[in-house]
């Protein structure tokens, strides 16, 4: 699996993401600066890490979503490429129009930073195929604007298409229908607020997140 991590000013989970990708695939992830006009050739997956790109100015992820590299990322996704956005990366994917809905300020108004029980709602995706449907895992969450807003029609559509990837067991931020992560229509773009890349080493508290990266590595074995 050949992977890249997009780095914006203010990204702070980029290295954790790179370590998680390399551990699962055995191949070093390529770090790509946001001002680059194009992605490296031959990628299987592009990841957008967590952090506070551009200081969360205007709206979280809004400026990053309009940066030069994102045109290539959108193009990559539209051609069937796999894209993973975590936390701020989820916000960037929403702002870039690759995923539906919006992410607003947490309903409790506070930054929430804790381990959270997350339910894997569907194992039917390249990101979650190593899990079982309904399995619960612990992923860290750390965000101020993770309140996923979807109207009733969108929630119905996402559920109907089996596109809700993860839900919170104890909704920490007011998200519609407890949604923690959503898939694109072709199931190749995943955005999620929880951080699987931060729980990838027993020495650092657990390995619940590793399976997500092994799922991907198995689904995307490089030709």
């Amino acid at each position, binding site marked *: 699996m050949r992977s890249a991590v997009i780095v914006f000013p203010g990204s702070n989970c980029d290295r954790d993401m790179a370590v998680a990708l390399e551990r699962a695939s055995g191949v070093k992830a390529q770090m790509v600066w946001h001002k680059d006009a194009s992605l490296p050739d031959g990628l299987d997956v592009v990841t957008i890490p967590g952090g506070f790109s551009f200081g969360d100015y*205007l*709206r979280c992820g*809004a400026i990053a979503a*309009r940066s030069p590299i994102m045109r290539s990322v959108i193009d990559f996704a539209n051609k069937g490429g796999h894209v993973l956005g975590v936390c701020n990366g989820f916000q960037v994917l929403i*702002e870039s129009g690759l995923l*539906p*809905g*919006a992410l*607003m*300020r*947490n*309903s*409790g*108004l506070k930054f929430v930073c804790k381990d959270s029980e997350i339910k894997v709602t569907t194992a039917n995706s390249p990101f979650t195929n190593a899990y079982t449907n309904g399995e619960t895992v612990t992923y860290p969450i750390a965000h101020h604007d993770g*309140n996923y*807003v979807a*109207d009733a029609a969108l929630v119905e559509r996402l559920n109907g298409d089996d596109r809700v990837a993860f839900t919170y067991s104890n909704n920490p931020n*007011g998200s519609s229908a407890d949604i923690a992560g959503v898939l694109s229509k072709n199931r190749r773009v995943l955005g999620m607020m929880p951080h699987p890349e931060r729980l990838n080493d027993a020495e650092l508290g657990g390995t619940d997140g590793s399976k997500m990266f092994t799922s991907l590595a198995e689904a995307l074995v490089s030709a």
Partner: protein
Amino acid sequence: MKARVYVTLKNGVLDPQGAAVQHALGSLGFDGVDAVRQGKVIELDLTETDASKAEVSVIKMCEKLLANTVIEDFKVEIL
């Protein structure tokens, strides 16, 4: 030429910040505030001198960046 853009949450979108401001006003003794909605104001200095062209251009800016039209409405004033 200047433009002023008002970005506000759409009706029906819950506004946790507005609700907190409303609560704070109540605790300061300001009674009778039924609801608070928080938005933002963005001021732009433009080189364009034609008001209608400026308006068209600012509306495009709103649609592409300044507002998230999934949850926000915007209003443009040319000054």
